[in-house]
């Protein structure tokens, strides 16, 4: 019997305001439905971060986001496990803090965990709020269907040279640096602004992360009729909005 796949939802007490803990649940169920043993842990910020194969970070408020970054840097486990090959999905505030720098509540820069070579600043314009469609960058992640999600952030995120974007926005703002990019991918780390949660809306992305964590590129297909029906609805509803905007 192989060891169980260990999935950790990082600091739901600080990075749990936006339903992104659902990403951990989606990953766990999809592995279990394929016969894998799974340990899914909600890791509170006042304890050492457990050792895991897959880490999920979610959205949070400005103050707690700063605390989460500091705790992850002090703890050291996340950086160590990434060096050893663990996969990471980091969403919104989580995406910002795994980068090099991010803005605190007052806009002042704070040090991030530095796993992704991205830097985030406060935007000069309004927050980016609304439905998003993203065409995935096949060079970064291989071919994946269009991503759907919902963004709600006040951050402009630029990538260092050599760090790929997750994809290009077809609808929405994304990283907000003017090149239409959304998110970032580096090794087995995926950063994105998409809520929904992103893996509930995009099971193919969930399976990409699982195939990394399980070292298995040929995951058996699942009955995804609920997700497919939701995806169809969102692609239609959001795609229609795009046509309106252009006409």
């Amino acid at each position, binding site marked *: 019997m192989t060891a169980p796949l260990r999935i950790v939802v990082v600091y*739901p*007490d*600080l990075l*749990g*305001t*936006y*339903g*992104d*803990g*659902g990403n951990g*649940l*989606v990953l766990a*169920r999809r592995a279990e439905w394929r016969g894998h043993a799974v340990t899914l842990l909600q890791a509170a*910020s*006042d304890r050492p971060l457990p050792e895991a194969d897959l880490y999920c970070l979610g959205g949070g*408020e*400005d*103050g*707690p986001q*700063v*605390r989460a970054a500091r705790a992850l840097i002090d703890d050291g486990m996340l950086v160590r496990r990434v060096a050893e090959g663990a996969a990471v999905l980091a969403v919104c505030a989580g995406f910002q803090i795994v980068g090099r720098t991010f803005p605190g509540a007052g806009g002042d820069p704070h040090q991030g965990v530095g796993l992704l070579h991205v830097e985030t600043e406060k935007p000069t314009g309004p927050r980016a*709020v*609304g*439905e998003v469609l993203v065409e995935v960058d096949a060079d970064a992640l291989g071919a994946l269907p269009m991503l759907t999600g*919902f963004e*709600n952030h006040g951050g402009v995120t630029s990538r260092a040279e050599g760090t790929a974007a997750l994809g290009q926005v077809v609808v929405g703002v994304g990283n907000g640096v003017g090149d239409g990019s959304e998110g970032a991918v580096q090794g087995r780390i995926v950063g994105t602004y998409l*809520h*929904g*949660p992103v893996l*509930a*809306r995009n099971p193919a992305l969930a399976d990409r992360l699982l195939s990394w964590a399980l070292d298995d590129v040929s995951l058996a297909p699942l009955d995804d009729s*609920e*997700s497919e*029906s*939701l995806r169809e*609805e969102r692609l239609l509803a959001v795609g229609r909005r795009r046509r309106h905007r252009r006409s």
Partner: protein
Amino acid sequence: MRAQLASTTTRIVNATSRRLGRGQGTVAGGRAGLRLDPRLLEHLSAGRQVALVTGTNGKTTTTRLLTVALGATGDPVVSNETGSNMPPGHVAALVGTRAGRAVLETDEVYLPRVLTSTAATTVVLLNLSRDQLDRTNEVRMIAGSWRAALAAAPHTHVVANADDPLVVWGAGAARDVHWVGAGLRWQHDAVGCPSCEGRISFLEDGWSCATCGFARPAPEVTLVSAADGTARAEWADGRAAPVRLSLPGRFNQANALMAAVAAEVSGVDALTALAAMEAVQEVAGRFTVRSFGEVRARLMLAKNPAGWDELLDLVAGSGAPLVVSINARIADGADPSWLWDVPYERLAGRVVVATGDRFRDLSVRLHYGGVRHSTEPDPVLAVAVAAAGSAEVVEVIGNYTAFYDLLGAPA
């Protein structure tokens, strides 16, 4: 003179809007009046005793309970009963009446502005938790804005929930605070200390921050719940009374105690106030049992994870079929990601039907939560589907517009 004209305009627009069948005609008139006289709310509040009720959950119910309690004296009491809880709704409620007492449900973001305008004598602070994150502010920002506003209102008496750290922070700079041990089931938004950068720990009998010492204040009265669903209010001064309501749920007992303390601050004995609240059967349709054809259903409203947490607890007592209806219209917030913060796993094993505009989001959530369910896009049909083969009253929980869709649907 200007206020007079603005008041008259508000009344005319409201009446016209009602005649045209455009809603309950409270917001349009209030807006028109405020355009003519931006200080209209201030003028209409002058000479009245105003109580404001705010918080994420329980505003409408607590407003209703306090209105009934203050009415126990026989004095006329005016309130914004339609749930329009921003200044246009307040103006519309006050404009046609000479009632000396007003109880105004107030949107949590608008509290500072409304407090300034009305010079309220009493403010009730219920709780703060995540709600419609795509269009409202972070809860810590709201708590901070309450704190600043109440510090600048030395004549206002505050009634505040001692069990919610964010509320305690919001009330903490006020001159006169009546702390109530009203309970807090949903603690997930209060872990980060609002006073410092530390961490709040919740224990059996309170909470505190290990870093700065910010801690639960001693309440003057506490809600003590029994396992059988009954509850008592126990005062630090030795008084005690049962909290008996027609409305269901521990959260409504908490709302009633908050209202009772607010009534006492306003000169009505708390025990008299509690007795008066017993008669309230439903509040703006919430908890109404109504018929859809042959089927009877109890309608409940939950807008956010904290509200759902309470209602899932309430319906856990029965095995009745359940309809869950989710919309994501403007009044609901455009993003239903919060469904993943609700512990729907507790519904496993019962008959569940997913409906509403966003039944597909709900269906995916239930699928991953291990809750077998069926789907039916039409909410009224969903009630019929849930009832099939059962004689029980169907439990229906919807978020804001989903609830009103069903309340207003033809019988």
